[in-house]
């Protein structure tokens, strides 16, 4: 039984515990033993993306110390996984412990598909689902083929979702445009960020999305914030929640 260290992003720990719990359920369902090291806080991405590498460096070092002991480290976020896999090198300069850990850090759906070899997920989800491809999952982890590049199509997240009974997909006019979250970008460039987010929401509305899902709760936090402010009839769920068979929370009465 592989021993998986749960890498739960700080904002998921604090604001979206149900996403972490769904991740745990899925990993148990596919035969993993999970451990949550409580010393973990944040991978350091907000500091690194602001350019404050001095502040990010100690968080990166803590992360590697905490997670070095596991067979695998699994995270329900493409963005945080990409931070550790692609942006830690400048803090470690060829350090062997980091190099070993780097090979064993996975985003949840890529871990299910690539490491555990999960072909289909049992369960049903009779809703029209809009899949938001989070940019770091898409263009840094390559969880799917991006619309800019040329080659055989693949999509690890959609492949898993597709195996659920009754699921339908909303087809978007812009299949993988950024939602505009972007970490501190969301407040630093608030006007553009919100316009980007609203454009995504409208694309989902015209495509008939009932449930909007993604590998990244941060994109969904931003989109859900816009959806709730505008009172749009869309529910937001992390991919882990759908795959783990969680129920869809009913919409407020006015949409019924």
């Amino acid at each position, binding site marked *: 039984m592989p021993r998986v260290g749960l890498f739960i992003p700080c904002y998921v720990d604090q*604001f979206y515990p149900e996403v972490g719990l769904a991740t745990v359920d899925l990993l*148990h369902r596919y035969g993993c033993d999970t451990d949550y090291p409580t010393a973990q*806080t944040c991978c350091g991405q907000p500091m*690194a993306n602001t350019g404050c590498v001095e502040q990010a460096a100690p968080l990166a070092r803590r992360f590697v110390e905490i997670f070095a002991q596991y067979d695998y480290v699994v995270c329900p976020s493409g963005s945080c996984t990409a931070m550790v896999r692609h942006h830690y090198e400048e803090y470690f300069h060829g350090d062997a412990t980091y190099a070993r850990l780097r090979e064993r850090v996975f985003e949840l759906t890529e871990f299910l598909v690539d490491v555990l070899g999960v072909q289909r997920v049992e369960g049903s989800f009779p809703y029209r689902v809009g899949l938001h491809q989070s940019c770091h999952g898409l*263009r840094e982890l390559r969880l799917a083929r991006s619309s800019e590049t040329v080659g055989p199509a693949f999509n690890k997240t959609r492949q898993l979702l597709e195996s659920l009974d009754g699921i339908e997909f909303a087809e978007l006019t812009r299949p993988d445009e950024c939602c505009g979250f972007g970490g501190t970008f969301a407040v630093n460039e608030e006007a553009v960020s919100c316009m980007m987010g609203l454009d995504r929401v409208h694309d989902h509305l015209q495509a008939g999305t009932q449930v909007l899902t993604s590998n990244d709760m941060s994109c969904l936090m931003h989109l859900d914030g816009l959806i709730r402010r505008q009172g749009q009839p869309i529910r937001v769920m992390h991919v882990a929640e759908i795959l783990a068979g969680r129920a869809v929370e009913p919409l407020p009465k006015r949409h019924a």
Partner: protein
Amino acid sequence: MAEELTVVDHPRAAAKFVRDDARAHWHDQALWFVRVKRDRMAQSLPEWETLRAKAAEIKAHTVGHLAEYLEQFERQATALGAKVHWAADAAEHNQIVLDILQRHGVKQVAKSKSMLTEECHLNPFLERHGITVVDTDLGEWIVQLRGEPPSHIVLPAIHIKKEEVGELFHRKLGTEAGATDPKYLTEAARYKLRQVFLESQAGITGVNFAIAETGGIVVCTNEGNADLGVSLPKLHIACMGIEKLIPRAADLGVFLRLLARSATGQPITTYSSHFHGPAPSGELHIVLVDNGRSSILGNDDYRRSLHCIRCGACMNTCPVYRRSGGHSYGATVPGPIGSILNPARDPGRYATLPYACSLCGSCTDVCPVKINLHEQLLTWRRDIAAAGKLSWSKQAAMKAAAFVLARPGLYRLAGKVARFSLRHLPRLLLYGPWNPWGRQRELPRAPRRSFREQYARRPKP
């Protein structure tokens, strides 16, 4: 120039652009349409990714041997009868061009599109010395008539609606008031520009590719205006950045196939004009301009930005550029590539540009010469922070966050306080002007217990 002294405030300029929602969406759609055309063209070539890799390889090689190739180019171009000039910066470039024009007694120049001459602010310089410059690319001419810089390197007037062009032409060219028909307006422009081509005593062009092996230059246009501008006058001045070099004529095919597909979704530009030496009894001057390029060449982090072939694909795909407009970048080259090139010239003035980016990485995937644009933008943020050019509030916020996040006990406490506040504080307090998140967005619905608390309490399997 006064504008050079002010610091570019991208968030502010972008917010202003976004405030006109209909126009911002129109701008976004217009450029997305070009991106879709580009996708169709790219997808029609199964060898697309191989071409990109090949182009990146050729550029890396060229940039790595730039001095030798430049010298080879100078030798070959000189042997063909061209005169090659070297300019260290914009001022020297402008002076060289002025000297040549004055020597020939030139009063009016027909200039085809050249972002290099925009970068060097050649037009106002020549105008100050009594020489009239007419930009003969239709989009460039429109922005010139409006007295503003281009907002895009390939589509200089993409921010202007046809109604506004009609109004401008009515005032400047005497077309019918209220005319908006693009065909009518283009015909009017064409008629006026033909007169410019007939009257001008010199033609200035940019350069898309300079071939070291042959000493020839290649200029790509859709309007044929480069050819027209240099056909009648005896004098042709071609201005180019030193990164425009490619080693061999055989390499050209790789780039011509990528350039127009990436830029506008055409298989090739309508005109790809080759100039090998001057026309009979004419003069060809080629001005090689550095203007900061060799210092980028010396930097491992940013060297690849010199691969750029100025196709504009990173602008068309950038979700921020499409929604903030080219002028919000306050520079000749806007968008992702501009946000890398401009801070290299003046990190203080352009410090907000690397942050005008959600790090989505679409630019990196669309770039025909595989510049790692979003990674370089991230590296710029590091360099801007290291140079102390981050705002005090950003620095303080990041320091405070890092302090808390390095201490799990403090982090747990801060999380608890945040969740409690979100659940219990009145809306008035949560959604004040101090909360930019909450201007248009709800804050997350905070749970009573964090994941770590619930994980510790859950029944063990």
